[in-house]
Protein backbone atom coordinates (compact mmCIF):
# COMPACT_ATOMS: atom_id res chain seq x y z
CA UNK A 1 0.00 0.00 0.00
CA UNK A 2 1.13 3.54 -0.42
CA UNK A 3 1.60 5.28 2.86
CA UNK A 4 0.96 8.99 3.13
CA UNK A 5 1.65 9.76 6.72
CA UNK A 6 3.49 7.45 9.04
CA UNK A 7 4.75 7.88 12.56
CA UNK A 8 7.51 5.63 13.87
CA UNK A 9 8.14 5.18 17.58
CA UNK A 10 7.18 8.74 18.40
CA UNK A 11 8.16 9.90 21.86
CA UNK A 12 7.86 13.38 23.26
CA UNK A 13 9.30 14.34 26.62
CA UNK A 14 8.67 17.68 28.25
CA UNK A 15 11.30 18.83 30.73
CA UNK A 16 11.11 21.67 33.14
CA UNK A 17 13.40 23.01 35.82
CA UNK A 18 17.08 23.78 35.36
CA UNK A 19 18.85 21.77 38.04
CA UNK A 20 16.35 19.16 39.13
CA UNK A 21 14.83 18.47 35.76
CA UNK A 22 11.36 17.02 35.86
CA UNK A 23 10.63 14.86 32.83
CA UNK A 24 7.11 14.26 31.71
CA UNK A 25 6.64 11.70 28.97
CA UNK A 26 3.63 13.02 27.09
CA UNK A 27 3.83 10.57 24.20
CA UNK A 28 5.58 7.24 24.64
CA UNK A 29 6.66 5.16 21.65
CA UNK A 30 3.62 5.47 19.41
CA UNK A 31 3.61 4.25 15.81
CA UNK A 32 0.80 4.66 13.33
CA UNK A 33 0.29 4.79 9.61
CA UNK A 34 -2.25 6.33 7.28
CA UNK A 35 -2.51 5.16 3.69
CA UNK A 36 -4.45 6.47 0.75
CA UNK A 37 -5.69 3.47 -1.21
CA UNK A 38 -8.07 2.71 1.61
CA UNK A 39 -9.21 5.94 3.26
CA UNK A 40 -10.03 5.38 6.88
CA UNK A 41 -10.85 7.17 10.10
CA UNK A 42 -8.30 6.37 12.76
CA UNK A 43 -9.38 7.26 16.28
CA UNK A 44 -6.93 8.34 18.94
CA UNK A 45 -8.93 8.09 22.17
CA UNK A 46 -7.81 9.25 25.56
CA UNK A 47 -8.63 11.50 28.46
CA UNK A 48 -6.97 14.78 29.34
CA UNK A 49 -3.28 14.21 29.99
CA UNK A 50 -3.14 11.13 27.77
CA UNK A 51 -0.89 12.93 25.27
CA UNK A 52 -3.39 13.00 22.42
CA UNK A 53 -3.01 16.72 21.69
CA UNK A 54 0.80 16.48 21.80
CA UNK A 55 0.57 13.64 19.31
CA UNK A 56 -1.63 15.78 17.05
CA UNK A 57 0.85 18.69 17.19
CA UNK A 58 3.67 16.39 16.18
CA UNK A 59 1.74 14.80 13.31
CA UNK A 60 0.93 18.28 11.99
CA UNK A 61 4.59 19.26 12.12
CA UNK A 62 3.99 22.00 14.70
CA UNK A 63 6.22 20.30 17.26
CA UNK A 64 9.27 18.09 16.72
CA UNK A 65 9.32 14.69 18.47
CA UNK A 66 11.98 14.00 21.12
CA UNK A 67 12.70 10.71 19.37
CA UNK A 68 11.21 8.76 16.50
CA UNK A 69 10.15 10.30 13.24
CA UNK A 70 7.19 11.27 11.12
CA UNK A 71 7.34 10.60 7.40
CA UNK A 72 5.22 12.14 4.69
CA UNK A 73 5.29 10.00 1.54
CA UNK A 74 8.43 8.38 2.83
CA UNK A 75 10.31 11.57 3.74
CA UNK A 76 11.00 12.71 7.28
CA UNK A 77 8.86 15.86 7.53
CA UNK A 78 11.50 17.77 9.46
CA UNK A 79 13.94 17.32 6.58
CA UNK A 80 11.48 18.72 4.03
CA UNK A 81 12.34 22.08 2.50
CA UNK A 82 10.63 24.59 0.22
CA UNK A 83 8.01 23.13 -2.09
CA UNK A 84 8.15 19.70 -0.49
CA UNK A 85 7.37 21.22 2.91
CA UNK A 86 4.50 23.27 1.43
CA UNK A 87 3.17 20.14 -0.17
CA UNK A 88 3.14 18.42 3.24
CA UNK A 89 1.51 21.46 4.88
CA UNK A 90 -1.17 21.63 2.27
CA UNK A 91 -1.99 17.94 2.39
CA UNK A 92 -2.01 17.37 6.14
CA UNK A 93 -4.62 19.74 7.53
CA UNK A 94 -5.92 20.31 11.05
CA UNK A 95 -9.38 20.76 12.49
CA UNK A 96 -9.06 22.16 15.98
CA UNK A 97 -11.13 21.78 19.11
CA UNK A 98 -12.10 25.34 19.84
CA UNK A 99 -13.99 26.76 16.88
CA UNK A 100 -13.54 30.28 18.24
CA UNK A 101 -9.78 30.26 18.80
CA UNK A 102 -8.98 29.27 15.23
CA UNK A 103 -10.24 32.59 13.94
CA UNK A 104 -8.01 35.62 14.19
CA UNK A 105 -10.31 38.01 16.08
CA UNK A 106 -9.41 41.01 13.91
CA UNK A 107 -10.50 39.44 10.62
CA UNK A 108 -13.73 38.21 9.08
CA UNK A 109 -14.46 34.48 9.15
CA UNK A 110 -14.18 33.92 5.39
CA UNK A 111 -10.47 34.62 5.64
CA UNK A 112 -9.92 31.12 7.03
CA UNK A 113 -11.12 29.86 3.62
CA UNK A 114 -9.83 32.56 1.29
CA UNK A 115 -6.34 32.72 2.75
CA UNK A 116 -5.36 29.09 2.08
CA UNK A 117 -7.14 29.24 -1.29
CA UNK A 118 -4.84 32.08 -2.22
CA UNK A 119 -1.61 30.90 -0.59
CA UNK A 120 -1.90 27.39 -2.00
CA UNK A 121 -2.95 28.70 -5.44
CA UNK A 122 -6.12 26.66 -5.43
CA UNK A 123 -7.99 29.10 -7.63
CA UNK A 124 -6.64 31.11 -10.55
CA UNK A 125 -8.85 34.15 -10.04
CA UNK A 126 -10.57 35.80 -7.12
CA UNK A 127 -13.94 35.03 -8.66
CA UNK A 128 -13.10 31.37 -8.98
CA UNK A 129 -11.87 31.33 -5.37
CA UNK A 130 -15.13 32.91 -4.24
CA UNK A 131 -17.06 30.25 -6.11
CA UNK A 132 -15.07 27.46 -4.45
CA UNK A 133 -15.48 29.00 -1.01
CA UNK A 134 -19.24 29.31 -1.41
CA UNK A 135 -19.47 25.77 -2.67
CA UNK A 136 -17.53 24.48 0.34
CA UNK A 137 -19.80 26.37 2.73
CA UNK A 138 -22.91 24.90 1.10
CA UNK A 139 -21.37 21.45 1.39
CA UNK A 140 -21.45 21.68 5.19
CA UNK A 141 -24.97 23.10 5.27
CA UNK A 142 -24.12 26.79 5.65
CA UNK A 143 -25.60 29.57 3.56
CA UNK A 144 -22.73 31.71 2.22
CA UNK A 145 -24.71 34.94 2.48
CA UNK A 146 -25.27 34.29 6.19
CA UNK A 147 -21.67 33.47 7.04
CA UNK A 148 -19.33 35.39 4.77
CA UNK A 149 -18.38 38.86 5.90
CA UNK A 150 -19.12 38.12 9.55
CA UNK A 151 -16.74 38.29 12.45
CA UNK A 152 -16.18 35.14 14.55
CA UNK A 153 -18.21 36.36 17.54
CA UNK A 154 -21.23 36.91 15.32
CA UNK A 155 -21.60 33.19 14.62
CA UNK A 156 -22.54 30.29 16.89
CA UNK A 157 -20.06 27.59 17.89
CA UNK A 158 -21.75 25.10 15.58
CA UNK A 159 -21.51 27.45 12.61
CA UNK A 160 -17.88 28.23 13.32
CA UNK A 161 -16.91 24.57 13.48
CA UNK A 162 -18.76 23.89 10.25
CA UNK A 163 -16.66 26.59 8.59
CA UNK A 164 -13.48 24.79 9.62
CA UNK A 165 -14.91 21.59 8.15
CA UNK A 166 -15.80 23.55 4.99
CA UNK A 167 -12.12 24.48 4.86
CA UNK A 168 -11.30 20.79 4.54
CA UNK A 169 -13.81 20.42 1.70
CA UNK A 170 -12.13 23.37 -0.04
CA UNK A 171 -8.53 22.26 0.39
CA UNK A 172 -9.12 18.54 -0.16
CA UNK A 173 -5.98 17.50 1.74
CA UNK A 174 -4.85 13.88 1.87
CA UNK A 175 -5.01 13.61 5.65
CA UNK A 176 -7.02 15.54 8.24
CA UNK A 177 -6.04 15.60 11.87
CA UNK A 178 -9.13 16.54 13.84
CA UNK A 179 -8.43 17.25 17.51
CA UNK A 180 -11.68 17.03 19.51
CA UNK A 181 -13.68 18.66 16.72
CA UNK A 182 -17.06 18.32 18.44
CA UNK A 183 -16.31 18.56 22.14
CA UNK A 184 -17.15 22.24 22.36
CA UNK A 185 -20.40 22.25 20.44
CA UNK A 186 -23.88 21.23 21.50
CA UNK A 187 -24.72 17.54 21.48
CA UNK A 188 -27.54 18.11 18.99
CA UNK A 189 -25.16 19.71 16.48
CA UNK A 190 -22.35 17.18 16.85
CA UNK A 191 -24.02 14.67 14.58
CA UNK A 192 -23.96 17.08 11.63
CA UNK A 193 -20.24 17.80 11.99
CA UNK A 194 -19.39 14.12 12.42
CA UNK A 195 -21.44 13.19 9.37
CA UNK A 196 -19.47 15.77 7.36
CA UNK A 197 -16.24 14.14 8.51
CA UNK A 198 -17.56 10.80 7.31
CA UNK A 199 -18.42 12.40 3.96
CA UNK A 200 -14.87 13.73 3.66
CA UNK A 201 -13.72 10.14 3.91
CA UNK A 202 -16.23 8.47 1.64
CA UNK A 203 -16.67 11.17 -1.00
CA UNK A 204 -13.23 12.75 -1.19
CA UNK A 205 -11.17 9.76 -0.04
CA UNK A 206 -9.49 11.74 2.76
CA UNK A 207 -8.05 9.78 5.64
CA UNK A 208 -8.85 11.24 9.02
CA UNK A 209 -7.16 10.96 12.37
CA UNK A 210 -9.95 11.67 14.82
CA UNK A 211 -8.70 12.59 18.27
CA UNK A 212 -11.29 12.45 21.03
CA UNK A 213 -12.07 11.59 24.62
CA UNK A 214 -15.55 10.43 23.64
CA UNK A 215 -15.77 6.74 22.79
CA UNK A 216 -19.38 6.96 21.62
CA UNK A 217 -18.59 9.30 18.74
CA UNK A 218 -15.36 7.37 18.14
CA UNK A 219 -17.40 4.21 17.72
CA UNK A 220 -19.81 5.87 15.33
CA UNK A 221 -17.27 7.25 12.87
CA UNK A 222 -14.03 5.32 13.45
CA UNK A 223 -12.50 2.33 11.70
CA UNK A 224 -9.38 1.72 13.79
CA UNK A 225 -8.89 2.93 17.33
CA UNK A 226 -5.86 3.60 19.50
CA UNK A 227 -6.68 4.00 23.19
CA UNK A 228 -4.10 6.18 24.94
CA UNK A 229 -3.30 6.23 28.64
CA UNK A 230 -0.56 8.58 29.84
CA UNK A 231 1.18 8.69 26.50
CA UNK A 232 1.09 4.95 25.71
CA UNK A 233 -1.25 3.02 23.44
CA UNK A 234 -2.88 0.54 25.84
CA UNK A 235 -5.22 -1.01 23.31
CA UNK A 236 -5.41 -0.74 19.55
CA UNK A 237 -7.44 -2.45 16.88
CA UNK A 238 -10.74 -2.54 15.07
CA UNK A 239 -13.11 -0.04 16.64
CA UNK A 240 -16.08 -2.45 16.66
CA UNK A 241 -14.11 -5.03 18.66
CA UNK A 242 -12.48 -2.59 21.04
CA UNK A 243 -15.77 -0.91 21.91
CA UNK A 244 -17.89 -4.05 22.09
CA UNK A 245 -15.42 -6.21 24.05
CA UNK A 246 -12.76 -3.95 25.52
CA UNK A 247 -9.87 -6.08 26.73
CA UNK A 248 -7.64 -3.62 28.58
CA UNK A 249 -8.94 -2.75 32.08
CA UNK A 250 -8.61 0.95 31.22
CA UNK A 251 -10.70 0.61 28.08
CA UNK A 252 -13.22 -1.31 30.17
CA UNK A 253 -13.30 1.52 32.71
CA UNK A 254 -13.76 4.11 29.95
CA UNK A 255 -16.57 2.16 28.30
CA UNK A 256 -18.30 1.46 31.60
CA UNK A 257 -18.20 5.10 32.64
CA UNK A 258 -20.08 6.35 29.58
CA UNK A 259 -23.53 7.52 30.61
CA UNK A 260 -25.72 5.36 28.39
CA UNK A 261 -28.75 7.28 27.11
CA UNK A 262 -31.11 4.69 28.55
CA UNK A 263 -32.41 5.25 32.08
CA UNK A 264 -33.00 1.50 32.53
CA UNK A 265 -29.30 0.62 32.19
CA UNK A 266 -27.48 1.23 35.49
CA UNK A 267 -24.43 3.44 35.16
CA UNK A 268 -21.30 1.31 35.04
CA UNK A 269 -22.84 -1.75 36.71
CA UNK A 270 -19.87 -3.99 35.93
CA UNK A 271 -17.25 -1.61 37.26
CA UNK A 272 -15.43 -2.05 40.54
CA UNK A 273 -16.84 0.16 43.30
CA UNK A 274 -15.61 3.73 43.45
CA UNK A 275 -12.73 4.34 45.77
CA UNK A 276 -11.38 7.72 46.77
CA UNK A 277 -8.14 7.37 44.90
CA UNK A 278 -6.36 10.24 43.32
CA UNK A 279 -6.61 9.84 39.57
CA UNK A 280 -3.30 11.65 39.13
CA UNK A 281 -1.35 8.94 40.89
CA UNK A 282 1.23 7.25 38.66
CA UNK A 283 3.43 4.23 39.04
CA UNK A 284 7.02 5.14 38.26
CA UNK A 285 8.33 1.75 37.20
CA UNK A 286 5.48 -0.52 36.15
CA UNK A 287 2.31 -0.18 34.14
CA UNK A 288 1.06 3.42 34.32
CA UNK A 289 -2.48 2.23 34.93
CA UNK A 290 -1.62 -0.19 37.74
CA UNK A 291 -2.52 2.17 40.66
CA UNK A 292 -6.08 2.47 39.36
CA UNK A 293 -6.41 -1.03 37.96
CA UNK A 294 -8.82 -3.42 39.71
CA UNK A 295 -6.90 -6.41 38.24
CA UNK A 296 -3.36 -5.28 39.06
CA UNK A 297 -0.97 -7.89 40.41
CA UNK A 298 2.71 -7.85 41.41
CA UNK A 299 4.27 -7.91 37.92
CA UNK A 300 2.25 -4.83 36.93
CA UNK A 301 4.07 -2.73 39.53
CA UNK A 302 7.54 -3.81 38.41
CA UNK A 303 7.79 -3.48 34.66
CA UNK A 304 5.47 -2.02 32.00
CA UNK A 305 3.85 -4.74 29.89
CA UNK A 306 4.58 -5.11 26.16
CA UNK A 307 1.80 -5.21 23.55
CA UNK A 308 0.22 -8.65 23.25
CA UNK A 309 -1.53 -9.59 20.01
CA UNK A 310 -5.06 -10.96 20.25
CA UNK A 311 -6.63 -13.32 17.70
CA UNK A 312 -8.72 -10.56 16.18
CA UNK A 313 -5.65 -8.46 15.34
CA UNK A 314 -5.82 -6.23 18.38
CA UNK A 315 -2.77 -5.20 20.39
CA UNK A 316 -3.27 -4.88 24.15
CA UNK A 317 -0.67 -3.61 26.59
CA UNK A 318 -1.66 -5.67 29.62
CA UNK A 319 -0.29 -8.73 31.48
CA UNK A 320 -3.80 -10.22 31.59
CA UNK A 321 -3.09 -11.33 28.02
CA UNK A 322 0.36 -12.72 28.79
CA UNK A 323 -0.51 -16.01 27.11
CA UNK A 324 -0.72 -14.26 23.76
CA UNK A 325 2.35 -13.59 21.58
CA UNK A 326 4.12 -10.29 22.02
CA UNK A 327 3.49 -7.94 19.11
CA UNK A 328 4.11 -4.35 18.20
CA UNK A 329 1.99 -1.62 16.73
CA UNK A 330 3.70 -1.84 13.32
CA UNK A 331 2.52 -5.38 12.73
CA UNK A 332 -0.97 -4.40 13.79
CA UNK A 333 -1.14 -1.81 11.03
CA UNK A 334 0.32 -4.10 8.40
CA UNK A 335 -2.41 -6.65 8.99
CA UNK A 336 -5.02 -3.93 9.17
CA UNK A 337 -4.27 -2.60 5.70
CA UNK A 338 -5.10 -5.98 4.14
CA UNK A 339 -8.65 -5.96 5.37
CA UNK A 340 -10.79 -3.38 3.65
CA UNK A 341 -13.72 -2.18 5.69
Amino acid at each position, binding site marked *: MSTILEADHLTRVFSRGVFNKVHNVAVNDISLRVGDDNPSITVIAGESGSGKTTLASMLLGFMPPTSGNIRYQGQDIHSLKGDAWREFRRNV*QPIFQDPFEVFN*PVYRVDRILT*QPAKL*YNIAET*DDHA*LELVEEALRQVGLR*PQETMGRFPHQLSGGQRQRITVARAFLLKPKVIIADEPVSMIDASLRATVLESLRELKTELGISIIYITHDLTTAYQVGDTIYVLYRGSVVEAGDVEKVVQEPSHPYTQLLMGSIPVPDPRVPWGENLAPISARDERETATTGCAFAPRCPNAFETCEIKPPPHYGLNDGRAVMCYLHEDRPVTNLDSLMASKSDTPN
Partner: protein
Amino acid sequence: MTLQGSSSEIPELSLTRRFFRLLSGNFLLLLGLLMLAGVVSFTVLGYLFVDLELARLNSAPISQPPSLEHWFGTDAVGRSILALLVIGTPKTLFIGLLAGICGITIGTCLGFFAGYVRGWADTFIRIISDVLFVIPILFLLVFIIEYFPVGAVWIMGIVIGVLSWMGTARTVRAQVLTLRERAFINMARASGAGTWRIIFVELMPNLTSYLAASFVQAVSGGILFSIGLEVLGLGPANSQTLGWSIWWANDYGAVLRGFWWWWGSPVVMIVIIFLGLFLTSLGLDRVANPRLRGSS
Protein backbone atom coordinates in the same frame (compact mmCIF):
# COMPACT_ATOMS: atom_id res chain seq x y z
CA MET B 1 -9.13 42.06 -2.19
CA THR B 2 -12.42 41.49 -3.93
CA LEU B 3 -13.13 38.26 -2.09
CA GLN B 4 -13.76 39.76 1.28
CA GLY B 5 -15.97 42.64 0.31
CA SER B 6 -18.56 40.34 -1.20
CA SER B 7 -22.03 39.61 0.09
CA SER B 8 -21.52 41.21 3.45
CA GLU B 9 -24.75 41.90 5.27
CA ILE B 10 -23.19 43.79 8.11
CA PRO B 11 -23.12 47.53 7.63
CA GLU B 12 -19.54 48.56 7.31
CA LEU B 13 -18.53 51.40 9.62
CA SER B 14 -16.28 53.92 7.95
CA LEU B 15 -12.94 54.53 9.60
CA THR B 16 -13.85 58.01 10.79
CA ARG B 17 -17.10 56.78 12.30
CA ARG B 18 -15.27 54.01 14.10
CA PHE B 19 -12.79 56.56 15.40
CA PHE B 20 -15.55 58.79 16.79
CA ARG B 21 -17.33 55.82 18.34
CA LEU B 22 -14.05 54.93 20.04
CA LEU B 23 -13.76 58.45 21.41
CA SER B 24 -17.32 58.78 22.62
CA GLY B 25 -16.90 56.03 25.18
CA ASN B 26 -13.40 57.02 26.20
CA PHE B 27 -13.27 60.33 28.07
CA LEU B 28 -9.57 60.11 28.89
CA LEU B 29 -8.56 59.56 25.27
CA LEU B 30 -10.78 62.43 24.15
CA LEU B 31 -9.36 64.84 26.73
CA GLY B 32 -5.76 63.82 26.00
CA LEU B 33 -6.17 64.21 22.25
CA LEU B 34 -7.88 67.60 22.74
CA MET B 35 -4.95 68.86 24.80
CA LEU B 36 -2.44 67.70 22.19
CA ALA B 37 -4.53 69.27 19.45
CA GLY B 38 -4.46 72.53 21.47
CA VAL B 39 -0.66 72.45 21.64
CA VAL B 40 -0.36 71.80 17.91
CA SER B 41 -2.79 74.58 16.97
CA PHE B 42 -0.93 76.94 19.30
CA THR B 43 2.25 76.51 17.25
CA VAL B 44 0.47 76.57 13.89
CA LEU B 45 -1.36 79.79 14.77
CA GLY B 46 1.86 81.12 16.28
CA TYR B 47 3.78 80.60 13.05
CA LEU B 48 1.02 82.35 11.16
CA PHE B 49 0.40 85.34 13.39
CA VAL B 50 3.29 85.88 15.81
CA ASP B 51 6.33 87.92 14.79
CA LEU B 52 9.10 85.36 15.23
CA GLU B 53 11.76 88.05 14.85
CA LEU B 54 10.98 88.77 18.48
CA ALA B 55 12.86 85.60 19.44
CA ARG B 56 16.17 87.31 18.56
CA LEU B 57 18.34 88.88 21.24
CA ASN B 58 17.46 92.51 22.07
CA SER B 59 14.46 92.58 19.76
CA ALA B 60 12.16 93.58 22.61
CA PRO B 61 12.34 95.47 25.89
CA ILE B 62 13.99 93.40 28.63
CA SER B 63 12.34 91.61 31.59
CA GLN B 64 8.77 92.81 31.02
CA PRO B 65 5.90 90.90 32.75
CA PRO B 66 3.01 89.80 30.48
CA SER B 67 1.32 92.73 28.78
CA LEU B 68 -1.00 93.35 25.84
CA GLU B 69 1.96 93.80 23.56
CA HIS B 70 3.96 90.79 24.83
CA TRP B 71 1.36 88.32 26.08
CA PHE B 72 3.84 86.07 27.86
CA GLY B 73 6.32 88.82 28.82
CA THR B 74 9.94 89.16 27.74
CA ASP B 75 13.23 87.81 29.12
CA ALA B 76 16.35 89.51 30.43
CA VAL B 77 18.06 89.51 27.04
CA GLY B 78 15.20 91.11 25.20
CA ARG B 79 13.23 88.26 23.63
CA SER B 80 9.48 87.69 23.54
CA ILE B 81 8.58 84.55 25.51
CA LEU B 82 5.60 83.94 23.19
CA ALA B 83 7.90 83.81 20.18
CA LEU B 84 10.23 81.46 22.04
CA LEU B 85 7.32 79.14 22.87
CA VAL B 86 6.07 79.13 19.29
CA ILE B 87 9.52 78.14 18.07
CA GLY B 88 10.41 75.80 20.96
CA THR B 89 7.23 73.69 21.22
CA PRO B 90 7.49 71.96 17.81
CA LYS B 91 11.20 71.35 18.30
CA THR B 92 10.58 69.64 21.62
CA LEU B 93 7.72 67.63 20.13
CA PHE B 94 9.98 66.66 17.23
CA ILE B 95 12.64 65.25 19.57
CA GLY B 96 9.94 63.28 21.39
CA LEU B 97 8.43 61.91 18.19
CA LEU B 98 11.81 60.93 16.82
CA ALA B 99 12.80 59.24 20.05
CA GLY B 100 9.39 57.54 20.20
CA ILE B 101 9.57 56.28 16.61
CA CYS B 102 13.11 54.96 17.07
CA GLY B 103 12.34 53.35 20.42
CA ILE B 104 9.10 51.73 19.35
CA THR B 105 10.50 50.46 16.05
CA ILE B 106 13.55 48.89 17.63
CA GLY B 107 11.53 47.60 20.59
CA THR B 108 8.78 46.09 18.45
CA CYS B 109 11.17 44.41 16.02
CA LEU B 110 13.34 42.94 18.75
CA GLY B 111 10.31 41.99 20.85
CA PHE B 112 8.66 40.19 17.94
CA PHE B 113 11.88 38.51 17.00
CA ALA B 114 12.56 37.32 20.56
CA GLY B 115 8.98 36.18 21.14
CA TYR B 116 8.46 34.46 17.82
CA VAL B 117 11.84 32.90 17.13
CA ARG B 118 12.70 32.24 20.81
CA GLY B 119 15.83 30.19 21.52
CA TRP B 120 19.19 31.98 21.20
CA ALA B 121 17.64 35.16 19.75
CA ASP B 122 15.41 35.48 22.77
CA THR B 123 18.25 34.93 25.22
CA PHE B 124 20.53 37.40 23.42
CA ILE B 125 17.93 40.16 23.21
CA ARG B 126 16.86 39.63 26.80
CA ILE B 127 20.41 39.93 28.08
CA ILE B 128 21.00 43.21 26.23
CA SER B 129 17.70 44.66 27.37
CA ASP B 130 18.25 43.57 30.97
CA VAL B 131 21.68 45.19 31.01
CA LEU B 132 20.35 48.44 29.54
CA PHE B 133 17.42 48.32 31.94
CA VAL B 134 19.53 48.54 35.07
CA ILE B 135 21.69 51.42 33.77
CA PRO B 136 19.90 54.72 34.40
CA ILE B 137 19.34 56.10 30.92
CA LEU B 138 19.75 59.74 31.89
CA PHE B 139 23.15 58.92 33.35
CA LEU B 140 24.12 57.09 30.18
CA LEU B 141 22.93 59.99 28.03
CA VAL B 142 24.91 62.50 30.10
CA PHE B 143 27.95 60.33 29.64
CA ILE B 144 27.52 59.93 25.89
CA ILE B 145 26.77 63.59 25.23
CA GLU B 146 29.69 64.71 27.38
CA TYR B 147 32.09 62.83 25.08
CA PHE B 148 30.26 63.13 21.76
CA PRO B 149 28.66 66.56 21.88
CA VAL B 150 25.33 66.52 20.07
CA GLY B 151 25.19 68.98 17.23
CA ALA B 152 21.56 68.89 16.20
CA VAL B 153 18.13 68.34 17.63
CA TRP B 154 17.41 65.26 15.53
CA ILE B 155 20.59 63.49 16.61
CA MET B 156 19.52 63.91 20.20
CA GLY B 157 16.12 62.41 19.41
CA ILE B 158 17.69 59.37 17.78
CA VAL B 159 20.21 58.85 20.58
CA ILE B 160 17.43 58.88 23.14
CA GLY B 161 15.31 56.51 21.03
CA VAL B 162 18.12 54.02 20.58
CA LEU B 163 18.53 53.84 24.33
CA SER B 164 14.87 53.46 25.33
CA TRP B 165 13.40 50.48 23.49
CA MET B 166 13.68 47.93 26.29
CA GLY B 167 10.27 48.34 27.88
CA THR B 168 8.52 47.99 24.53
CA ALA B 169 10.63 45.00 23.53
CA ARG B 170 9.92 43.26 26.81
CA THR B 171 6.16 43.68 26.69
CA VAL B 172 5.85 42.95 22.97
CA ARG B 173 7.80 39.75 23.56
CA ALA B 174 5.39 38.73 26.34
CA GLN B 175 2.36 39.46 24.14
CA VAL B 176 3.78 37.52 21.23
CA LEU B 177 4.61 34.55 23.45
CA THR B 178 0.97 34.23 24.51
CA LEU B 179 -0.47 35.01 21.08
CA ARG B 180 1.72 32.51 19.23
CA GLU B 181 0.24 29.64 21.24
CA ARG B 182 -3.27 30.48 20.11
CA ALA B 183 -4.93 28.15 17.65
CA PHE B 184 -5.39 30.80 14.97
CA ILE B 185 -1.63 31.04 14.55
CA ASN B 186 -1.40 27.31 13.91
CA MET B 187 -4.36 27.61 11.57
CA ALA B 188 -2.51 30.31 9.60
CA ARG B 189 0.55 28.08 9.40
CA ALA B 190 -1.62 25.27 8.08
CA SER B 191 -3.00 27.73 5.54
CA GLY B 192 0.48 28.17 4.13
CA ALA B 193 1.46 31.42 5.83
CA GLY B 194 5.18 31.91 6.46
CA THR B 195 6.86 33.47 9.48
CA TRP B 196 6.79 37.05 8.18
CA ARG B 197 3.18 36.84 7.12
CA ILE B 198 2.25 35.46 10.52
CA ILE B 199 4.11 38.24 12.32
CA PHE B 200 2.82 41.15 10.25
CA VAL B 201 -0.59 39.95 9.09
CA GLU B 202 -1.74 37.70 11.94
CA LEU B 203 -0.03 38.96 15.08
CA MET B 204 0.56 42.66 14.47
CA PRO B 205 -3.10 43.71 14.01
CA ASN B 206 -3.87 42.16 17.38
CA LEU B 207 -1.33 44.46 18.97
CA THR B 208 -2.15 47.77 17.25
CA SER B 209 -3.97 49.53 20.07
CA TYR B 210 -1.37 48.22 22.47
CA LEU B 211 1.49 49.47 20.29
CA ALA B 212 -0.21 52.86 19.96
CA ALA B 213 -0.27 53.18 23.76
CA SER B 214 3.40 52.19 23.96
CA PHE B 215 4.27 54.71 21.28
CA VAL B 216 2.65 57.56 23.17
CA GLN B 217 4.54 56.53 26.29
CA ALA B 218 7.79 56.38 24.34
CA VAL B 219 7.19 59.91 22.99
CA SER B 220 6.67 61.34 26.47
CA GLY B 221 9.73 59.45 27.71
CA GLY B 222 11.78 61.00 24.88
CA ILE B 223 10.59 64.50 25.71
CA LEU B 224 11.32 63.98 29.38
CA PHE B 225 14.91 62.87 28.72
CA SER B 226 15.56 65.67 26.22
CA ILE B 227 14.33 68.33 28.64
CA GLY B 228 16.36 66.83 31.45
CA LEU B 229 19.52 67.00 29.34
CA GLU B 230 18.85 70.52 28.13
CA VAL B 231 18.09 71.93 31.54
CA LEU B 232 21.46 70.54 32.58
CA GLY B 233 22.97 72.41 29.64
CA LEU B 234 23.83 69.26 27.71
CA GLY B 235 21.51 69.82 24.76
CA PRO B 236 22.54 70.93 21.28
CA ALA B 237 23.82 74.51 21.27
CA ASN B 238 21.21 77.17 20.45
CA SER B 239 18.54 74.47 19.91
CA GLN B 240 15.71 76.84 20.92
CA THR B 241 13.66 74.02 22.42
CA LEU B 242 11.51 74.38 25.52
CA GLY B 243 14.19 72.75 27.68
CA TRP B 244 16.74 75.17 26.28
CA SER B 245 14.46 78.12 27.29
CA ILE B 246 14.31 76.80 30.83
CA TRP B 247 18.10 76.47 30.89
CA TRP B 248 18.39 80.17 29.87
CA ALA B 249 15.90 81.24 32.52
CA ASN B 250 17.79 79.25 35.12
CA ASP B 251 21.13 80.65 33.96
CA TYR B 252 19.87 84.21 34.44
CA GLY B 253 18.43 83.41 37.87
CA ALA B 254 14.86 84.03 36.69
CA VAL B 255 13.42 82.22 39.70
CA LEU B 256 15.36 84.25 42.26
CA ARG B 257 14.70 87.52 40.45
CA GLY B 258 10.96 86.88 40.37
CA PHE B 259 10.63 86.67 36.55
CA TRP B 260 7.96 83.94 36.93
CA TRP B 261 6.69 84.36 33.34
CA TRP B 262 10.13 83.56 31.95
CA TRP B 263 10.53 80.11 33.48
CA GLY B 264 6.80 79.56 34.10
CA SER B 265 5.60 79.73 30.46
CA PRO B 266 7.76 76.89 29.08
CA VAL B 267 7.04 74.83 32.20
CA VAL B 268 3.28 75.23 31.72
CA MET B 269 3.62 74.27 28.06
CA ILE B 270 5.60 71.16 28.99
CA VAL B 271 3.03 70.20 31.62
CA ILE B 272 0.21 70.51 29.07
CA ILE B 273 2.14 68.33 26.60
CA PHE B 274 2.81 65.69 29.25
CA LEU B 275 -0.76 65.65 30.53
CA GLY B 276 -2.06 65.33 26.99
CA LEU B 277 0.28 62.44 26.22
CA PHE B 278 -0.41 60.78 29.56
CA LEU B 279 -4.19 60.90 29.18
CA THR B 280 -3.93 59.67 25.59
CA SER B 281 -1.84 56.70 26.65
CA LEU B 282 -4.24 55.90 29.51
CA GLY B 283 -7.13 56.09 27.07
CA LEU B 284 -5.39 53.84 24.54
CA ASP B 285 -4.52 51.42 27.30
CA ARG B 286 -8.20 51.15 28.02
CA VAL B 287 -8.83 50.26 24.39
CA ALA B 288 -6.01 47.72 24.39
CA ASN B 289 -6.99 46.14 27.68
CA PRO B 290 -10.72 45.45 27.87
CA ARG B 291 -10.47 44.48 31.54
CA LEU B 292 -9.83 48.11 32.47
CA ARG B 293 -12.86 49.30 30.54
CA GLY B 294 -15.41 48.12 33.09
CA SER B 295 -13.91 50.15 35.89
CA SER B 296 -14.24 53.47 34.10
